[in-house]
């Protein structure tokens, strides 16, 4: 059965009814990321796509409010018309799961706390969510946060809901921060570095005062799949750093970075459209790691630890990889058989500190391998108690994140 509320009041009634009946609900926006997380057994879907529309947009206040079911594409179009954007650069994982691009909703992006290559400068979805209207698993409507950036009134429940995968409350309206689109963007490419040299080159760039906003490393086979000619034709690994800002500033910083990075390998420069195409590829991943049957892992580690973790994994497991966030975000494509490399990958990540998410794998694999990194007992118990507070009867996306959440 599909429930599709068209206002917050109706939503609260539906959740309250589900609570009374003990009916578990699968909470979806457009459903593009259904393949993320543990498979669930839910007969009823709570579809939020009718809770759509921009309710407030004040460009000079850098704030927008929308229904949670609003398509991200519609939001981004409206922002673009005013020269603004979501600075956390939300990725579109739809195509990773065999869905068309451009379908996901803002609620889905926030509930999964996604962020693209600008994450290291601008923050993740969590850092941009200012206010929420939601219905908890208790069937009660509540609000958190507000519409202003600077707000420390009470607990920051917005952070709690961002990244909670719909397991604590159903968001129906969201208020978030928006920022101006930078006037210019350019990307410097360095060719032929191995992963460790790339990490150190990216650290040098990110540690310089030249305000680098993104840094990624594409090993040769990954670079060869790029749609950007200079990257595809390199015939070697490509390390990319992006800078943004007013024209005169970008020109000067570009020159400085070419000098800094030129010591490490041959360099090239990408201007507007090529630059943005490359970062869109790194953000959405699907094109660069195109084997649709491979299992996909997303690792978050300290940036300098990235290459070492990959090296440790590669000893036991054939894998293709892509580094973003200066080395701190590692995408791995491995064979989707057995545990999809979970034991090897998580051992390497645990040794370095961080977490590994099995972003894509066939259902049977996700049923036996925890898609989200297992937590230490104390933390897991705390998470369970948080779930008890918001959704005591486990009716919202039960089991999506962990068996007992």
């Amino acid at each position, binding site marked *: 059965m599909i429930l599709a509320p068209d206002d917050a009041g109706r939503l609260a009634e539906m959740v309250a009814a589900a*609570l009374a*009946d*003990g009916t578990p609900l699968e909470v979806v926006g457009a459903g593009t990321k259904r393949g993320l997380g543990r498979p669930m057994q839910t007969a009823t879907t709570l579809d939020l796509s009718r809770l759509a529309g921009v309710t407030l947009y004040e460009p*000079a*206040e850098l*704030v927008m409010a929308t229904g949670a079911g609003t398509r991200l594409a519609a939001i981004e179009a409206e922002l673009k018309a005013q020269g603004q954007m979501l600075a956390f650069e939300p990725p579109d994982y739809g195509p990773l799961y065999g869905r068309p691009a451009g379908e996901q909703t803002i609620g889905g992006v926030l509930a999964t*706390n996604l962020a693209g290559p600008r994450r290291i400068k601008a*923050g993740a979805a*969590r*850092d941009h969510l200012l206010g929420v209207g939601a219905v908890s698993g208790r*069937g*009660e*409507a*509540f609000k*958190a946060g*507000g519409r*202003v*950036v*600077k*707000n*420390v*009134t*009470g*607990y*920051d429940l917005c952070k*709690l809901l961002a*990244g*909670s995968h719909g397991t*604590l409350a159903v968001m129906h309206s969201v208020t978030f921060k928006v920022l*101006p689109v930078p006037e210019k963007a350019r990307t410097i490419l360095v060719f032929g570095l191995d992963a460790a040299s790339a990490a150190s080159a990216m*650290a040098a760039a*990110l*540690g310089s*005062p*030249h*305000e680098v906003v993104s840094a990624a490393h594409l090993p040769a086979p990954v670079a060869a799949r790029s749609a950007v000619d200079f990257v595809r034709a390199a015939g070697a690994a490509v390390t990319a750093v992006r800078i943004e800002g*007013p*024209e*005169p*500033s970008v020109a*000067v*910083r570009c020159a400085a970075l070419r000098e800094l990075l030129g010591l490490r390998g041959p360099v090239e420069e990408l201007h507007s459209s090529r630059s943005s195409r490359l970062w869109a590829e790194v953000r959405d991943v699907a094109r660069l790691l195109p084997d649709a049957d491979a299992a996909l892992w997303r690792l*978050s580690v*300290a*940036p*300098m*630890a990235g290459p070492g973790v990959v090296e440790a994994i590669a000893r036991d497991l054939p894998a293709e990889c892509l580094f973003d966030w200066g080395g*701190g975000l590692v995408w791995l494509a491995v064979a989707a058989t057995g545990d999809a490399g979970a034991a090897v990958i998580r051992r390497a990540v645990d040794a370095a*500190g*961080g977490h590994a*998410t099995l972003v894509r794998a066939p259902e049977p694999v996700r049923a036996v391998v925890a898609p989200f990194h297992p937590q*230490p007992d*104390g933390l897991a118990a705390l*998470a369970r*108690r*948080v779930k*008890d*507070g*918001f959704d*005591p009867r486990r009716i919202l996306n039960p089991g999506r994140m962990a068996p007992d959440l």
Partner: protein
Amino acid sequence: MLMPEPDRATLARRDEIVSALREIVPGGVIDRAEGMRVYESDGLTAYRQLPLVVVLPETTAQVAAVLRWCNAHAVKVVPRGAGTSLSGGALPLADGVLLGMARFNRVLAIDQDNRCAVVQPGVTNLGISQAVAHLGFYYAPDPSSQIACTIGGNVAENSGGVHCLKYGLTTNNVLGVEIVTIDGEVIRLGGRHLDAEGYDLLGVVIGSEGLLGVVTEVTVRILPKPATARALLIGFPTSEQAGDCVAATIAAGIIPGGMEMMDRLAIHAAEDFVHAGYPRDVEALLIVELDGPAAEVDHLIDRVAAIARGCGSVTLRISESEAERLAFWAGRKAAFPAVGRISPDYYCMDGTIPRHRLPLVLSRMREMEGQYGLRVANVFHAGDGNLHPLILYDANRPGELERAEAFGSDILRLCVEVGGVLTGEHGVGVEKRDLMGAMFSEVDLAHQQRLKCAFDPQGLLNPGKVFPTLHRCAELGRLHVSGGKLPFPDLPRF
């Protein structure tokens, strides 16, 4: 302000509590009144209370043992950093242990390549920037108390500062924490990597005002220092025009490092105090600071100057040297003590409003000045809408403190009414506790308190702060099902 009634049984067990703490932290317990006096209040000095006893642990294991003991014996605990809170967040309780974190004062690791530093919670905010300055790095959030306030306190309060519009608050600049919960469990949230999975409890702990756990280690993001910074000092005949200038700057796609506004009373007080060269014949003064690569700063300075002229500025200076830039800031940074010179006491408020409501809020505040017979000087983080009205009063005149507090409450209610919030960076503490109902419904607050119950089911950590009513967790956990009875009535419920 009413605090929870001290528990007589706990007061009667004081000797037992003191000796238990002495066993856990030998040489780190203060139980004599004269020794505890320095802890009796924080930055909100209108409220004072001697704690039951003060304990100053040095290790995470000691913190865990203290909390475990207090939890087992149902004794309340108030954590404290440097005690600079302006909302009474560290106000002691007569029947509570004051847990001072001052001895956790070491920088544990500086990791330049991963752009982070691991520090103990008692390290001061400025101390972090100083520890990484030789590498050309700094820690971005800069609350005005930064020479004294500790990073542990910053985590508790989610502290801001003048640069948050561009660089974010504490919550956007902390990568990980180690906390100890009231049951003595040591929990690590985040680390040197980004966006830990699972519920974002790091995001929840930051700004939780010491009610969820005691922070014993913090991993902060450090940033390369901007190559240069320059400022504009712009005077306007009306606050509306200054507000227009702020809006137009942002609408032009410029996010300055800092954007501060002062009103006439604050300008005059500051000028009389530090002689910063502020114009006296303007109603509003803006300081706009651009930081970053020199080419960018020079370019944007000219654009902001043009915007300011277009908005009707009557005075405009651009800093041509670092000394001049610092002089522009000198008055703003001295604004609080400057106001202290023109009034025996002042009461600092901290609401945030949508920026375009500023003219309305200022004019309503003028009306309230007449109504309460008290003056207000305004200092304003204009970029992000965070107001700091300073209400001038004289505590020696009977009734004035109460009038100032009532005035302050009205200002905060006004902030909420125009779409803003009660506190932008100072926290709720005891100060704004009873105003929470102006912003949140009972249901909203119950959801926040259920989070508290997950961390501290007995409500022993910093009770009496933030929430106007102390609900029992059992009562908050009860399920209320409308439109029907719960099926399976025999199932255990929370």
